[in-house]
């Protein structure tokens, strides 16, 4: 808020002024908002409208004056004193310009599938990372949100195409290639252009298999300085909390379980505590953002400068993320406009203090009968007295004790996590475009990103040890430390610092040729680019027993009794050299044909014989409405058919470990490769080695895609839309292979072993209409359907499992014909009602009545892994978005929604149990089996812990992402536009899923816990009040 007030003061000193000339007037848009930067031409003079839309021009009254402005219909009006001109928006979305690789193109000329999202769509949904703002706004672009502070959402374009390689698209920010856009202030973004098909993205060759996302940042426009201030303040809370069982329900459940397993110990019915762990753990959190931007320019120079501060905290106490960004963009024209220099620079300074997501899982499972703190102020644990039935750690003589469960205290866990991250990211671009002759331009640009990050972790080892068991004392810890000199398990604390520096650049140089010969229009681009990335310096140091006060947290002050750890390395950078070319031709804007070719050489594959690859594409389009036979059809304003084919690569592949395994240094090999050993009376460490994995030659994955689509505008351009069909095949997907169990090869290895097909279609429709001058509205919907299939797996490579729950249970498997890493589970088939029923039927282990019953799929009389079957995938089959905008006078209202369906998610919170003393949701309690005949659906209090279809639920959901109501004041004082608004982000979620959030990407690795709710951040709803001011 401070920044905002400061901004207002700055602006009060700013004042525009006019030069008195013959004709004065004002240019407005359709909504009566002043339009700055409109070019005005009279017969003798030219002028530009100022910030308030005012202009003056040397002209005689009655003389025709022409008004032109990009994106608006040009008008010629006769000059009159104090004239007011209303400009109409030319678009039609199709007349817009979109960014393609190494150039731009009119949207009408596109022959491939590119989605564009503009700044107004982004700023409407404020977020730390702009990707979160575009969820649901482009068909086929699936954004999986993560509501933790400062989190990066996941973006998957046209389905999951790879099992092991990189899944993220390539980001190109104004020409700078980057791996993330977390350093960007969303308000600095002018547009997203997302290349979805290979025909368009093939110009980026071996980096393009996951699509390419172009981000164009805002630039200054010719005219007076525009100052914009945006501020908002938001309050956040859990969107979809799960109601957990209370103390008395828990006690009932626990005692039923005890009775069922034949234990005589019971919890007392009257428990002193009724802890709502989520309540204790989480609170309302806040976010705010303030930014200010200055932009403007003259005929030969434009500038844009912005500053943004974004701060948000999380549900867990102490979880914060903040970011300050500065951005400056300038363009200069020289030599009669033939040379254009574009320069931009951004700096982002971010900080965060993460807290463990595991606390959310613990809060689900910890028993409500356990208090947060014991009366003496120490964190409580789940101890109880089996003899007296009381919860607590005091066990009298002759009494026995135990733990209700092995879950820690979630509040303590969050409390002890002490981590601080800082990051500075500098990104810059310099570009020169020189027009050699009319139609031929040479461009060279250099873009680079340098980042520095520092992570500090302090671990209160003693505090955690004492907390884990309340009967432990500091004296015991000290005694252990004394009898184990040098053993870091008994150091009071540990402190570590990790520093990472990374650098990447790309240098592109190309020629663009643009010429029309009569009705023949030709556009050609050819160039060369070189790129360096993965140039990383990393150092890590750790010391033990530093003073407890934070001010002394220096490794230098760590105790000399424990060996300090120092690790440092430089990574081997990756260098890519590429040649590319594109040829586009159209005849009379009716028939289009386009071809691109890219040749990439990549240093990481240098040891292979094949480290150069060629990635071609070809596409064609036909604008039917420019044909004479369709040009006059009423209500059909535009219709284009297009088809394309392209080949793209994914060079972000995993690599095999070295052929000889060793584990030198500090890990000692325990649990990693088990190579090292100790010998001698003092058991001194000796280093060992073993042979590793087979050597397999890996190269990039190659994806081939065909795309066919159409674009249309109907009914006086009120209805526009597009439809696309695609079929993409990753022809040599890399799989993670387990060597034959009885072979000498120890480690899993990677090899090209299958094909991954994604086939689907996308539909986008947009209706907009002006009912009156005061009332306009638009409705956009999009829908995308995708089918993911693993095909042609090499014979011995099938059947790898994944989706480990961390307790010995797995949930996924790959198999030919199924989606990648589909659910593979026992099929729950009712509940055992009686022991007689168990005895008479196939069962697993020694179940008891009330346990889930599983289907004997192979009818061999026993239940084991061979009875598991496939249950679909965590990958949605379809996703859809809806965006509604209404403008009435000075009010604006918008509603956005997003949904996915056809996917399954695994409720790991409910399903992953160890001791049976974990808490349950209230619904689980109410629905449980309580005796023969009570239910044949839900298990009883005594249940097994096997992974099964019982815990797999529909992942379908529809969420209202955003409801915004705003009101705009115009021309108040010096302020040309002031808008205040309230936004409800994620106010409603419609889902049958019983956990906190069905958006479960986790690490995103298909083989891991993607689609499983375990240690996941809940969905958040946010209420925002904000203001936009324009001077």
């Amino acid at each position: 808020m401070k920044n905002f007030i400061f901004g207002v003061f700055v602006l009060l000193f700013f004042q525009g002024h006019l030069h008195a000339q013959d004709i004065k007037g004002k240019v407005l848009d359709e909504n009566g908002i002043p339009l700055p930067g409109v070019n005005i031409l009279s017969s003798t003079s030219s002028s530009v409208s100022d910030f308030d839309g005012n202009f003056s021009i040397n002209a005689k009254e009655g003389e025709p004056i022409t008004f032109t402005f990009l994106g608006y219909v040009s008008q010629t009006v006769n000059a009159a004193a104090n004239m007011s001109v209303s400009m109409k928006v030319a678009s039609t979305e199709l007349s817009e310009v979109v960014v393609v690789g190494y150039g731009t193109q009119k949207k009408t000329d596109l022959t491939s599938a590119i989605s564009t999202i503009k700044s107004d769509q982004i700023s409407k949904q404020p977020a730390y990372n702009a990707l979160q703002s575009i969820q649901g706004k482009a068909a086929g672009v699936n954004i999986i949100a993560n509501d933790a502070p400062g989190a990066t959402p996941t973006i998957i374009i046209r389905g999951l195409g790879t099992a092991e390689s990189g899944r993220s698209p390539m980001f190109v920010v104004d020409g700078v290639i980057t791996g993330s856009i977390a350093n960007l202030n969303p308000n600095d973004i002018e547009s997203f252009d997302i290349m979805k098909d290979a025909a368009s993205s093939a110009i980026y060759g071996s980096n393009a298999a996951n699509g390419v996302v172009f981000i164009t940042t805002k630039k200054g426009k010719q005219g007076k300085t525009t100052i914009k201030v945006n501020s908002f303040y938001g309050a956040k809370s859990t969107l979809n909390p799960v109601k957990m069982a209370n103390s008395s329900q828990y006690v009932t459940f626990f005692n039923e379980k005890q009775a069922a397993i034949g234990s005589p110990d019971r919890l007392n019915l009257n428990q002193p505590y009724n802890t709502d762990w989520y309540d204790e753990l989480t609170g309302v959190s806040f976010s705010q953002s303030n930014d200010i931007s200055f932009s403007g320019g003259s005929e030969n120079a434009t500038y844009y400068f912005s500053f943004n501060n974004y701060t948000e905290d999380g549900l867990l106490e102490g979880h914060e993320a903040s970011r300050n960004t500065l951005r400056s963009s300038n363009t200069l024209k020289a030599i009669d406009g033939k040379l254009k220099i574009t320069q931009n620079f951004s700096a982002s300074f971010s900080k965060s203090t993460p807290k463990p997501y595991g606390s959310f899982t613990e809060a689900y499972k910890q028993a409500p009968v356990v208090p947060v703190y014991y009366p003496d102020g120490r964190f409580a644990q789940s101890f109880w007295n089996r003899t007296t039935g009381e919860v607590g750690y005091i066990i009298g003589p002759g009494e026995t004790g135990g733990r209700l469960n092995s879950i820690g205290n979630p509040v303590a866990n969050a409390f002890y996590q002490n981590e601080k991250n800082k990051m500075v990211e500098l990104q810059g671009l310099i570009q020169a475009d020189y027009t050699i002759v009319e139609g031929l331009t040479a461009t060279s640009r250099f873009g680079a990103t340098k980042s520095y990050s520092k992570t500090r972790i302090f671990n209160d080892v003693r505090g955690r040890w004492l907390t884990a068991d309340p009967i432990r004392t500091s004296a015991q810890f000290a005694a252990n430390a004394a009898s184990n000199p040098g053993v870091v398990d008994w150091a009071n604390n540990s402190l570590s610092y990790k520093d990472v520096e990374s650098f990447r650049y790309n240098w592109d140089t190309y020629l663009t040729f643009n010429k029309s010969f009569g009705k023949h229009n030709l556009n050609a681009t050819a160039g060369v680019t070189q790129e360096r990335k993965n140039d990383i310096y990393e150092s890590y140091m750790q010391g033990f027993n530093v003073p407890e006060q934070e001010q002394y947290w220096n490794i230098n002050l760590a105790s000399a009794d424990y060996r300090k750890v120092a690790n440092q390395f430089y990574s081997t950078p990756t260098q890519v050299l590429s040649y590319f070319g594109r040829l586009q031709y159209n005849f009379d804007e009716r028939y289009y044909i386009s071809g691109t070719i890219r040749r990439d050489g990549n240093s990481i594959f240098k040891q292979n014989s094949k480290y150069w690859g060629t990635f071609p594409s070809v596409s064609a389009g036909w604008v039917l409405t420019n044909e004479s036979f369709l040009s006059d059809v009423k209500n059909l304003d535009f219709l284009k058919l297009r088809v394309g084919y392209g080949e793209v690569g994914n060079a972000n592949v995993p690599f095999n470990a070295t052929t000889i395994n060793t584990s030198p240094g500090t890990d000692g090999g325990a649990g990693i490769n088990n190579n090292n050993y100790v010998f001698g009376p003092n058991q001194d460490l000796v280093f060992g080695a073993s042979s590793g994995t087979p050597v397999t030659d890996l190269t990039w994955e190659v994806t081939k895609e065909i795309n066919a689509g159409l674009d249309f505008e109907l009914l006086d351009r009120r209805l526009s839309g597009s439809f696309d069909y695609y079929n993409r095949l990753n022809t040599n997907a890399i799989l993670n292979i387990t060597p034959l169990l009885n072979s000498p090869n120890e480690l899993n290895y990677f090899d090209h072993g299958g094909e991954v097909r994604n086939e689907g279609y996308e539909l986008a429709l947009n209706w907009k209409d002006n009912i009156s001058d005061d009332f306009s509205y638009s409705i956009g919907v999009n829908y995308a359907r995708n089918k993911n299939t693993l095909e042609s797996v090499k014979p011995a490579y099938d059947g790898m499992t994944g989706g480990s729950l961390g307790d010995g249970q797995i949930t996924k498997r790959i198999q030919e014909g199924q989606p990648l890493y589909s659910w593979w589970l026992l099929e729950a088939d009712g509940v055992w009602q009686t022991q007689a029923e168990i005895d008479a039927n196939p069962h697993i282990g020694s179940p008891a009545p009330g346990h889930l019953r599983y289907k004997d799929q192979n009818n061999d009389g026993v239940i084991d892994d061979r009875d598991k079957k496939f249950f679909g995938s965590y990958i949605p089959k379809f996703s859809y978005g809806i965006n509604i905008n209404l403008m009435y006078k000075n009010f604006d209202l918008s509603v956005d929604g997003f949904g996915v369906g056809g996917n399954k998610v695994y409720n790991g919170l409910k399903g992953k149990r160890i001791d049976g003393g974990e808490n349950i949701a209230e619904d689980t309690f109410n629905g449980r089996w309580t005796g023969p005949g009570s239910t044949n659906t839900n298990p009883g209090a005594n249940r097994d812990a096997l992974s099964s279809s019982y815990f797999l639920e529909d992942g379908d959901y529809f969420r209202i992402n955003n409801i915004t109501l705003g009101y705009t004041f115009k021309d108040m004082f010096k302020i040309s536009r002031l808008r205040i608004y309230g936004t409800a982000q994620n106010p409603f979620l419609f889902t049958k899923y019983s956990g906190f959030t069905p958006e479960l990407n986790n690490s995103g690795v298909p083989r891991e816990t993607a689609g499983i709710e375990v240690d996941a951040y809940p969905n958040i709803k946010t209420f925002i009040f904000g203001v936009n001011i324009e001077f």
Partner: protein
Amino acid sequence: MKINYKKIACLTFAFAVLVGCDDFLDVDSRENVTEEDSNQNFEPVQFVNGIYGMMTSWDYAFSYLGITEIISDNADKGSSPGDPGGDKGLLDGLTFTATAGSVEAMWTNWYKAIGRASYSINYTENYGLTDVAYKNRLIGEAKFLRAYHYFFLVRAFGDVPLQHVDLIVRAPKDQVYDFIEQDLLEAIQVLPEKSEYAPADLGRATKGAAKALLAKVYLYQKDWQNAYEYADEVITSGEYGLEPDYAQIWRANTENGVESIFEVQARGVALAHGVQQYSETQGARGPSGWGWGFNTPSQNLLDAFNAEGDVIRRDATIIFRGETLYDGREVSNAVENPMYNEKAYSSANAGAGDGDKNIRVLRLAEIYLIRAEAANELNNQDVALSSLKEVRDRVNLGEITTRDQALLRTLIWKERRLELAFEHDRWFDLVRTGQAAQAMQANGKPFEVGKHELFPIPNAQLIQTPAMGQNLNW
């Protein structure tokens, strides 16, 4: 002016194309030293060390417990009733199948260890070591370890593929035993005795260890004469003796002690190396506890100790709830299970991930019992009784005097159980002696004759190599 700019633009472009040649892709490796820059090769001893390292893996702290002890009448799964420990509950109840994770883990672990041994034998032979005795010793160590792991495989699975011959075709049990014997006989030729090693090599395989293992291998084949001879050679070698106090055998102060013939080495320091969590998985669970509470002594075992009046070994083997341990640690009444495995207990770093517990694999008392059993079968009851006496005297149990071969046989078997409880011998011993069906059924477990004598070939292996074929009735 105009022309200059034009030139610059053209030159820039030309320059970019020029540097854009292939050598841009020659990037020097920085984090890993490449083959041509590396002056040092791997020493053969490193690969031999790597075989030993295999025995410190996590599998030995969990899966191994399941298929050697929990499955038997000595031990229960332990832990919380609701915690299956993967398949430990299924093993305990003898309801596991070919998909049991513990069986798969050990099958894989043993074969990988064999792979390491064969690799290091090849590597050592071809490396060009000039010190022939040293070279032979390294090969001998590797052969001992290869035999040790094949011995597990043949006992657990019967006919198994010999890795160097074929990965699919199962060699008959006899051939596997032949290969084990050949490795051990060759190892005996080249390995030094325990006393001949340099102190820094304490813990490596010795001549005595190879002989002791060979005696046990012959015992499993009922080759009484050879079992007798090799056991006798170990006993009379002068290298070993019995610890005077049975309770000390599994403590830190007797590591590599007089009774120890072969044991897995561990040092409980994360920076050095320890056996993964062996003490932690079997440590007391709950308040005052330090572990997960798996592999707990069964009532059946306790009864066996009590029936024999075997107080010393009972109390050295079992931690009782509420007991104060020898090092002063109080095991509160609040712990979850009534009994825990004391032989897995480490005083210094009880619950640490990198444990310091040396796992005793072969010790002299067992060799006495092997000699006793072989002697009895050879109708040499004098030696049988005297061997037995050595073992029983230490724990204050009365002398056995019967010369009835059949009775003496069962007494020796019982002695093995009580002496070696929780030393990962019970299940294989039950099967070897043919007592398994009776003992397990008496313990209420559904042992099926003709099936449970062998573990199933892991299903995951059969998915990879269906032609290998499953064991009978699995």
